[in-house]
Protein backbone atom coordinates (compact mmCIF):
# COMPACT_ATOMS: atom_id res chain seq x y z
CA UNK A 1 0.00 0.00 0.00
CA UNK A 2 1.38 3.40 -0.95
CA UNK A 3 1.27 6.02 1.79
CA UNK A 4 0.74 9.55 0.49
CA UNK A 5 3.20 12.29 1.43
CA UNK A 6 0.29 14.41 2.65
CA UNK A 7 -0.69 11.73 5.17
CA UNK A 8 2.91 11.40 6.36
CA UNK A 9 3.32 15.18 6.67
CA UNK A 10 0.08 15.54 8.67
CA UNK A 11 0.84 12.66 11.01
CA UNK A 12 1.70 14.11 14.40
CA UNK A 13 2.09 12.79 17.90
CA UNK A 14 -0.95 14.51 19.38
CA UNK A 15 0.10 14.04 22.98
CA UNK A 16 3.52 15.61 22.38
CA UNK A 17 5.59 16.31 25.48
CA UNK A 18 2.62 15.57 27.79
CA UNK A 19 2.57 11.98 26.60
CA UNK A 20 6.33 11.76 27.06
CA UNK A 21 6.19 13.11 30.62
CA UNK A 22 3.26 10.98 31.78
CA UNK A 23 4.63 7.81 33.41
CA UNK A 24 1.39 7.03 35.26
CA UNK A 25 -0.21 4.66 32.75
CA UNK A 26 2.77 2.36 32.48
CA UNK A 27 5.11 0.45 34.76
CA UNK A 28 8.80 0.59 35.57
CA UNK A 29 9.89 0.30 31.95
CA UNK A 30 8.06 3.52 31.14
CA UNK A 31 9.60 5.32 34.14
CA UNK A 32 13.02 4.10 33.07
CA UNK A 33 12.32 5.37 29.51
CA UNK A 34 11.35 8.75 30.95
CA UNK A 35 14.40 8.94 33.28
CA UNK A 36 16.73 7.97 30.43
CA UNK A 37 15.53 10.96 28.39
CA UNK A 38 15.42 13.43 31.28
CA UNK A 39 18.92 12.47 32.46
CA UNK A 40 20.18 12.60 28.86
CA UNK A 41 18.90 16.15 28.33
CA UNK A 42 20.22 17.23 31.75
CA UNK A 43 23.68 15.75 30.97
CA UNK A 44 23.75 17.43 27.54
CA UNK A 45 23.06 20.81 29.19
CA UNK A 46 25.80 20.07 31.75
CA UNK A 47 28.21 19.04 28.95
CA UNK A 48 27.67 22.31 27.06
CA UNK A 49 28.11 24.25 30.33
CA UNK A 50 31.25 22.27 31.20
CA UNK A 51 32.85 22.95 27.79
CA UNK A 52 32.07 26.67 28.22
CA UNK A 53 33.28 26.67 31.86
CA UNK A 54 36.57 25.03 30.86
CA UNK A 55 37.16 27.64 28.15
CA UNK A 56 37.55 30.26 30.91
CA UNK A 57 41.10 28.84 31.25
CA UNK A 58 42.03 30.79 28.14
CA UNK A 59 41.14 34.11 29.80
CA UNK A 60 43.73 33.61 32.55
CA UNK A 61 43.93 32.48 36.16
CA UNK A 62 41.48 35.06 37.56
CA UNK A 63 38.75 34.10 35.08
CA UNK A 64 39.33 30.39 35.86
CA UNK A 65 39.13 30.99 39.63
CA UNK A 66 36.00 33.13 39.24
CA UNK A 67 34.31 30.36 37.24
CA UNK A 68 35.47 27.75 39.75
CA UNK A 69 33.93 29.69 42.65
CA UNK A 70 30.48 29.02 41.19
CA UNK A 71 30.97 25.27 41.65
CA UNK A 72 32.67 25.58 45.06
CA UNK A 73 29.42 26.45 46.85
CA UNK A 74 26.94 24.02 48.50
CA UNK A 75 24.57 24.66 45.56
CA UNK A 76 27.39 23.92 43.09
CA UNK A 77 28.27 20.72 44.97
CA UNK A 78 24.62 19.57 44.94
CA UNK A 79 24.48 20.24 41.18
CA UNK A 80 27.64 18.17 40.64
CA UNK A 81 26.22 15.34 42.82
CA UNK A 82 23.14 15.37 40.56
CA UNK A 83 25.45 15.16 37.54
CA UNK A 84 27.19 12.13 39.11
CA UNK A 85 23.87 10.40 39.87
CA UNK A 86 22.25 11.11 36.51
CA UNK A 87 25.35 10.05 34.55
CA UNK A 88 25.57 6.77 36.49
CA UNK A 89 21.88 6.02 35.94
CA UNK A 90 22.04 7.02 32.25
CA UNK A 91 25.11 4.81 31.65
CA UNK A 92 23.84 1.73 33.49
CA UNK A 93 20.32 1.96 32.09
CA UNK A 94 21.81 2.66 28.64
CA UNK A 95 23.77 -0.61 28.81
CA UNK A 96 20.52 -2.40 29.79
CA UNK A 97 18.83 -0.82 26.75
CA UNK A 98 21.63 -1.95 24.43
CA UNK A 99 21.04 -5.54 25.62
CA UNK A 100 17.27 -5.09 25.27
CA UNK A 101 17.55 -3.76 21.70
CA UNK A 102 19.77 -6.74 20.92
CA UNK A 103 17.06 -9.06 22.24
CA UNK A 104 19.14 -10.15 25.25
CA UNK A 105 17.33 -10.77 28.51
CA UNK A 106 13.85 -10.48 27.04
CA UNK A 107 12.87 -14.10 27.52
CA UNK A 108 10.92 -16.28 25.11
CA UNK A 109 7.73 -15.18 23.42
CA UNK A 110 4.64 -16.62 25.08
CA UNK A 111 0.89 -16.77 24.62
CA UNK A 112 -0.76 -13.59 25.94
CA UNK A 113 -2.87 -14.76 28.90
CA UNK A 114 -4.94 -12.59 31.18
CA UNK A 115 -3.90 -10.34 33.05
CA UNK A 116 -1.49 -9.71 30.16
CA UNK A 117 1.73 -9.02 32.07
CA UNK A 118 4.35 -7.57 29.74
CA UNK A 119 6.71 -10.46 28.93
CA UNK A 120 9.45 -7.98 28.01
CA UNK A 121 9.48 -6.65 31.60
CA UNK A 122 10.76 -9.81 33.24
CA UNK A 123 12.90 -9.97 36.38
CA UNK A 124 16.13 -9.40 34.41
CA UNK A 125 14.82 -6.16 32.93
CA UNK A 126 13.28 -5.07 36.23
CA UNK A 127 16.49 -5.82 38.16
CA UNK A 128 18.49 -3.91 35.50
CA UNK A 129 16.46 -0.79 36.30
CA UNK A 130 16.97 -1.33 40.03
CA UNK A 131 20.72 -1.84 39.55
CA UNK A 132 20.86 1.48 37.64
CA UNK A 133 19.03 3.29 40.46
CA UNK A 134 21.11 1.69 43.23
CA UNK A 135 24.43 2.40 41.45
CA UNK A 136 23.31 6.03 40.92
CA UNK A 137 22.58 6.35 44.65
CA UNK A 138 25.99 4.84 45.59
CA UNK A 139 27.80 7.14 43.13
CA UNK A 140 25.96 10.16 44.56
CA UNK A 141 26.96 9.17 48.11
CA UNK A 142 30.60 8.78 47.02
CA UNK A 143 30.46 12.13 45.17
CA UNK A 144 29.00 13.79 48.28
CA UNK A 145 31.82 12.39 50.39
CA UNK A 146 34.48 13.72 47.99
CA UNK A 147 32.89 17.13 47.38
CA UNK A 148 31.78 17.93 50.92
CA UNK A 149 34.97 16.62 52.58
CA UNK A 150 36.58 19.93 51.51
CA UNK A 151 39.88 18.24 50.58
Amino acid at each position, binding site marked *: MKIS*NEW*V*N*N*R*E*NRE*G*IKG*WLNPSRYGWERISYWFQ*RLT*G*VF*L*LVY*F*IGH*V*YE*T*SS*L*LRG*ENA*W*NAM*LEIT*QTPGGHIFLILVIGT*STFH*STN*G*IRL*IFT*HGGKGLGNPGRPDYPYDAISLNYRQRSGIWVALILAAIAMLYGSA*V*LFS*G*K
Partner: protein
Amino acid sequence: MMFKESQIMKIHYTTGLAALFVVAVHIIVRLMTPSFSLSLLYENVINNYHNIPYSILLESILILIAIHGFNGLRIILLELRQNKPWEDGITIFTIAATISIIAYGTRTILVANWLG
Protein backbone atom coordinates in the same frame (compact mmCIF):
# COMPACT_ATOMS: atom_id res chain seq x y z
CA MET B 1 26.05 10.51 2.79
CA MET B 2 22.80 9.36 4.40
CA PHE B 3 22.77 6.87 7.25
CA LYS B 4 19.97 4.45 8.02
CA GLU B 5 18.40 4.82 11.49
CA SER B 6 19.72 1.37 12.42
CA GLN B 7 23.26 2.54 11.59
CA ILE B 8 22.72 5.76 13.58
CA MET B 9 21.60 3.70 16.60
CA LYS B 10 24.78 1.60 16.33
CA ILE B 11 26.81 4.85 16.29
CA HIS B 12 24.77 6.06 19.29
CA TYR B 13 25.49 2.91 21.31
CA THR B 14 29.16 2.76 20.29
CA THR B 15 29.80 6.41 21.18
CA GLY B 16 27.94 5.91 24.49
CA LEU B 17 30.05 2.90 25.50
CA ALA B 18 33.29 4.53 24.34
CA ALA B 19 32.40 7.76 26.19
CA LEU B 20 31.77 5.75 29.35
CA PHE B 21 35.31 4.35 29.13
CA VAL B 22 37.12 7.64 28.40
CA VAL B 23 35.10 9.61 31.01
CA ALA B 24 36.00 6.93 33.58
CA VAL B 25 39.71 7.46 32.76
CA HIS B 26 39.20 11.27 32.98
CA ILE B 27 37.61 10.95 36.47
CA ILE B 28 40.26 8.47 37.69
CA VAL B 29 43.02 10.93 36.64
CA ARG B 30 41.18 13.66 38.61
CA LEU B 31 40.93 11.45 41.71
CA MET B 32 44.57 10.32 41.47
CA THR B 33 45.81 13.79 42.44
CA PRO B 34 46.32 14.26 46.23
CA SER B 35 42.96 16.01 46.53
CA PHE B 36 40.05 16.95 44.30
CA SER B 37 40.41 20.69 44.98
CA LEU B 38 44.18 20.60 44.19
CA SER B 39 43.40 18.97 40.84
CA LEU B 40 41.41 22.09 39.89
CA LEU B 41 44.23 24.58 40.53
CA TYR B 42 44.94 26.69 37.43
CA GLU B 43 48.57 25.47 37.10
CA ASN B 44 47.54 21.82 37.48
CA VAL B 45 44.80 22.12 34.87
CA ILE B 46 47.13 23.87 32.39
CA ASN B 47 49.74 21.15 33.02
CA ASN B 48 47.12 18.55 32.14
CA TYR B 49 46.66 20.21 28.75
CA HIS B 50 50.44 20.09 28.15
CA ASN B 51 50.24 16.31 28.46
CA ILE B 52 49.56 15.17 24.88
CA PRO B 53 47.96 11.76 25.68
CA TYR B 54 45.63 13.47 28.19
CA SER B 55 44.74 16.16 25.62
CA ILE B 56 43.90 13.39 23.14
CA LEU B 57 41.72 11.79 25.83
CA LEU B 58 39.89 15.12 26.38
CA GLU B 59 39.40 15.57 22.62
CA SER B 60 37.97 12.06 22.33
CA ILE B 61 35.57 12.75 25.24
CA LEU B 62 34.50 15.95 23.50
CA ILE B 63 33.82 14.24 20.15
CA LEU B 64 32.13 11.13 21.60
CA ILE B 65 29.82 12.98 24.00
CA ALA B 66 28.96 15.68 21.43
CA ILE B 67 27.89 13.01 18.89
CA HIS B 68 26.09 10.87 21.50
CA GLY B 69 24.43 13.82 23.27
CA PHE B 70 23.14 15.66 20.23
CA ASN B 71 22.03 12.45 18.53
CA GLY B 72 20.16 11.60 21.75
CA LEU B 73 18.49 15.00 21.60
CA ARG B 74 17.61 14.36 17.94
CA ILE B 75 16.00 11.03 18.89
CA ILE B 76 13.92 12.70 21.65
CA LEU B 77 12.78 15.52 19.36
CA LEU B 78 11.85 13.07 16.59
CA GLU B 79 9.78 11.06 19.09
CA LEU B 80 7.81 14.17 20.00
CA ARG B 81 6.79 15.07 16.47
CA GLN B 82 7.09 13.54 13.02
CA ASN B 83 6.90 15.33 9.71
CA LYS B 84 9.42 15.93 6.96
CA PRO B 85 10.27 19.62 7.61
CA TRP B 86 10.59 19.00 11.39
CA GLU B 87 12.77 15.90 10.92
CA ASP B 88 15.05 17.63 8.40
CA GLY B 89 15.27 20.76 10.57
CA ILE B 90 16.15 18.75 13.68
CA THR B 91 18.80 16.77 11.81
CA ILE B 92 20.42 19.95 10.44
CA PHE B 93 20.26 21.63 13.88
CA THR B 94 21.86 18.69 15.69
CA ILE B 95 24.65 18.29 13.10
CA ALA B 96 25.38 22.06 13.31
CA ALA B 97 25.32 21.98 17.14
CA THR B 98 27.62 18.94 17.24
CA ILE B 99 30.16 20.58 14.91
CA SER B 100 29.97 23.88 16.86
CA ILE B 101 30.59 22.36 20.29
CA ILE B 102 33.43 20.18 18.95
CA ALA B 103 35.03 23.24 17.30
CA TYR B 104 34.66 25.35 20.48
CA GLY B 105 36.04 22.63 22.77
CA THR B 106 38.90 21.80 20.37
CA ARG B 107 39.90 25.47 20.36
CA THR B 108 40.14 25.37 24.19
CA ILE B 109 42.27 22.21 24.11
CA LEU B 110 44.64 23.55 21.43
CA VAL B 111 45.09 27.04 22.92
CA ALA B 112 45.47 25.66 26.48
CA ASN B 113 48.12 23.29 25.11
CA TRP B 114 50.08 26.32 23.79
CA LEU B 115 49.69 28.38 27.01
CA GLY B 116 52.86 28.67 29.06
